[in-house]
C-alpha cells in the first residue's frame, strides 16, 4: 500500500502535494492561533480536551493503523500515565515534569509484559487483553484506596502554581500541540521506514510477512510499547493539566472506544486520520456535554456511531473523501482494479504514458488483495 508520502512526482501529484502542504499549514496555523481567538476560557479548555484526544488517538494509531491490531484499552494506558504522574508528584515529591517523564517510561515498561501476553497469538486475544486491562486497572485503582486515593480521587498539584486559569489552559494547549506534532512526526517517520513496512506487512498478511522473514512478534511488541509510551505521556500531561483524577474516568472503557472511533472515522491508514477524527468526535462530545449533560444516551450514541463506522466506513472519511474527489474529477479512471494488466505491462517496459488510475486513497477501499480469508476459516 503506497503511502501518501511515496507519491511519484508526476505534475498532477506535485499539484496535489502543494495542495496538501497548504492544507497542513492552514490547519497548523488554525491550531496554533486558536488560544488567541478562543472567545472564553471554557472554549480554550475544550480545545485542550480535543487536542488531548488527538494525541491519544494518534498514539493509538501506531498499533491500530500500522499493524491492524485494535486495542480498546488505550484509555487505561492513558489513565495509568496520569495516575503514575500524579502519584509520583504527590507521594514521591518529584517535580511535575520529571514525574511526567518517569511516568512515561513506567507505562512503556508496563506495556512490555502486557504486549508479550497479548501479542503472542494473533487476532482477537489482543482485543480481549486490552479490555481486560481496563477492567483490572479500574478494579485495582478503586480498591487500593490507601495508595491511589480510590474513588475519592487524587488531586495533582499544578505545575505552574502562579498562573491564572486561562493562562494555564493556554500553556497546556501549546504543550499538547507540541506533543501532537511529535507524535505525528514519529508516525510519519515510521510510515516511511523499513520498520513501518514490516508492520504494514503484518497488517496485510501476518503469515506471509513472517515467512518472508519479518520478525513479526518483535515488531508488534516494539510498536505497542512506543504507542503505550505516547499514550502514557499524553495521559500524564492531562493529569497535570486537569489536576484531579478519578479511577472511573481514568480507566473507562469509554475513553478507549472514543479513541478507536476517532481513528477509524478519520482513517487509520492516514497520517492525519486520527486528528481529523478527534476534531469531529471531540468537538461533538464537548457539544453534547454542554447541550445535554451526561446522559446514558452518550453511550448509546457512541455505540451507534461506532457500529455505523465499522459497518459502512471502516476505512474512514479521508479515503472516502479522496474516492469521492476522484470520482468527480477523474471519472474516466474509475476502474475497480488497483492496477490494470495493461499498466503492469507498461510499467515493466518503461514509464507509464497515461495517468495511473490508482491515487492511493482511491485504491484503499476496493477489497485489498488477500490470501487470509480462506486460511482464517480453517
Amino acid at each position, binding site marked *: 500500500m503506497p503511502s501518501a508520502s511515496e507519491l511519484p512526482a508526476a505534475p498532477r501529484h506535485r499539484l496535489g502535494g502543494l495542495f496538501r502542504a497548504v492544507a497542513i499549514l492552514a490547519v497548523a496555523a488554525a491550531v496554533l492561533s486558536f488560544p488567541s481567538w478562543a472567545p472564553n476560557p471554557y472554549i480554550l479548555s475544550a480545545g485542550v480536551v480535543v487536542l488531548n484526544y488527538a494525541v491519544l488517538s494518534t498514539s493509538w494509531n501506531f498499533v491500530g493503523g500500522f499493524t491492524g491490531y485494535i486495542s480498546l484499552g488505550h484509555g487505561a494506558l492513558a489513565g495509568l500515565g496520569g495516575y503514575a504522574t500524579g502519584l509520583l508528584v504527590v507521594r514521591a515529591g518529584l517535580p511535575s515534569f520529571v514525574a511526567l517523564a518517569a511516568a512515561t517510561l513506567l507505562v512503556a515498561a508496563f506495556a512490555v509484559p502486557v504486549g508479550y501476553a497479548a501479542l503472542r497469538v494473533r487476532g482477537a*486475544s489482543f*482485543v480481549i487483553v486490552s479490555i481486560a486491562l481496563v477492567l483490572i486497572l479500574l478494579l485495582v485503582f*478503586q480498591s487500593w484506596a490507601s495508595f491511589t486515593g480510590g474513588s475519592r480521587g487524587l488531586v495533582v498539584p499544578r505545575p505552574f502554581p502562579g498562573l491564572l486559569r486561562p493562562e494555564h489552559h493556554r500553556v497546556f494547549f501549546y504543550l499538547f500541540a507540541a506533543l501532537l506534532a511529535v507524535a505525528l512526526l514519529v508516525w510519519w517517520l515510521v510510515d516511511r521506514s523499513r520498520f513501518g513496512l514490516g508492520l504494514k506487512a503484518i497488517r496485510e498478511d501476518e503469515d506471509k510477512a513472517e515467512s518472508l522473514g519479518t520478525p513479526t512478534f518483535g515488531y508488534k511488541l516494539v510498536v505497542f510499547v512506543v504507542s503505550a509510551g505516547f499514550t502514557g505521556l499524553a495521559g500524564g500531561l492531562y493529569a497535570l493539566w486537569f489536576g484531579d483524577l478519578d479511577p472511573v474516568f481514568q480507566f473507562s472503557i469509554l475513553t478507549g472506544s472514543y479513541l478507536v472511533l476517532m481513528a477509524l472515522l478519520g482513517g487509520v491508514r492516514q497520517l492525519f486520520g486520527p486528528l481529523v477524527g478527534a476534531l469531529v468526535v471531540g468537538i461533538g462530545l464537548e457539544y453534547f456535554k454542554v447541550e445535554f449533560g451526561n446522559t446514558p444516551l452518550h453511550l*448509546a450514541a457512541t*455505540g451507534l456511531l*461506532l457500529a455505523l463506522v465499522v459497518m459502512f466506513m471502516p476505512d474512514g472519511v479521508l479515503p472516502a473523501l479522496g474516492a469521492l474527489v476522484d470520482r468527480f474529477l477523474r471519472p474516466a479512471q474509475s476502474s475497480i482494479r488497483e492496477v490494470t494488466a495493461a499498466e503492469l505491462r507498461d510499467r515493466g517496459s518503461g514509464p507509464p504514458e497515461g495517468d495511473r488510475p490508482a491515487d492511493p486513497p482511491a485504491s484503499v477501499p476496493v477489497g485489498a488483495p488477500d490470501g487470509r480469508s480462506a486460511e482464517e476459516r480453517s
Partner: protein
Amino acid sequence: MPSGALLFQSVILGLLLGGLYALLAAGLTLYFGIMRVVMIAHSAFLILAAYLAWWSHARLGVDPLLSMVVTVPLFFGLGVLLQRLLLARLRPVTLTMMSVLLTFAIAVLIEGLLGYAFSGTQRRIQLGYGSASLGLFGARIAVVKLIAFGLAAVALLTLYLLLKRTRFGWALRATIQHPDAARLIGIDTDRIAGFGFGVGLATAAVGGTALALDTTIYPSLHWHWIGPLMAIIVVGGLGSVPGAAVAAMLLGLVQSLLQIPLGTTWAQTVFYLALFATLAFRPQGFFGGRLAQRF
C-alpha cells in the same frame, strides 16, 4: 483458617456460580466456532435479559422465570438478525477485529439504552422464595441460587443434545468444523450460521433470567461479566465446549474460595491473572483444539 462449614459453603457457591459461567461461556464458544467472532455483546444481552426478567416481575407481576417464554425466542431472533444483517456483511479480511468492534459497539449501545430506559438505579427482584435457603451439612444455600444453577444446567444439557442429536446440530457442527466441506454436502452454511448465533444468544436469555433471580442488576454490570467470560474461554481454549465448562467451574470455584481471605473485589482478579498467565505461557488454552490456534 476458616471453618469447615464456611469452606464447604464456598465450594458449593463456587460450583453454582461456575454453572452459570459455563452456560455463558458455551455461547461464546459457539459464536467463535461459527465465525471466529469474539462476541463482546454477549454479556450485555445477558444483562438485557436480566432487566426484562426484572421488568416483567416488577411491572407485570409475572414470575421472572416465565419471562423466558418471551425472551428466549426473542433473543434467538435477534441473534439470527445480528449474524445475517451485521456480522456476515463485514469484510472477511478484517473480520476478527471489526467484529469485535461491532459487538463492542452493540454492547455499549445496549448499556446506554438500558441506562436511558431504566436509569442507572440498582434493581433487584423481590421474590417470595427469595430469602428461602436450604441447610446442607452446615452450609446455607439460597434456593434461588439452586434454581439459577438448575436453569443453567438444563440449558447446557439442551444445548449439548441439540448439537449432538439433531440434524440441525450436525449441520452446525459441520459448519464449524469445515464450512467448505459442509457446503459441498448440501448444508446451507449461511442459514445454519445464523441459527447458530440465535442459539448462542438464546443461552444468554436463559443466563440473564438466572442471573436476575439473585443478583442486583445495573446497566454497566455486563463489564463485570465479560472479563471473567473472556478469561474462561481463553483458559479453556477456544472451540471446546467441555474445555470452557471445566474452566468455568474451576475459575468459579477459585473465585468463590478466594473471597474468604481477600473479599469479593480482589477475588475477581483471579480471572485476569488466569487470562494473562494462559496467554503468556500456553496461549492455546488448556483444553483447546485446533480452533484455539487462530485466536
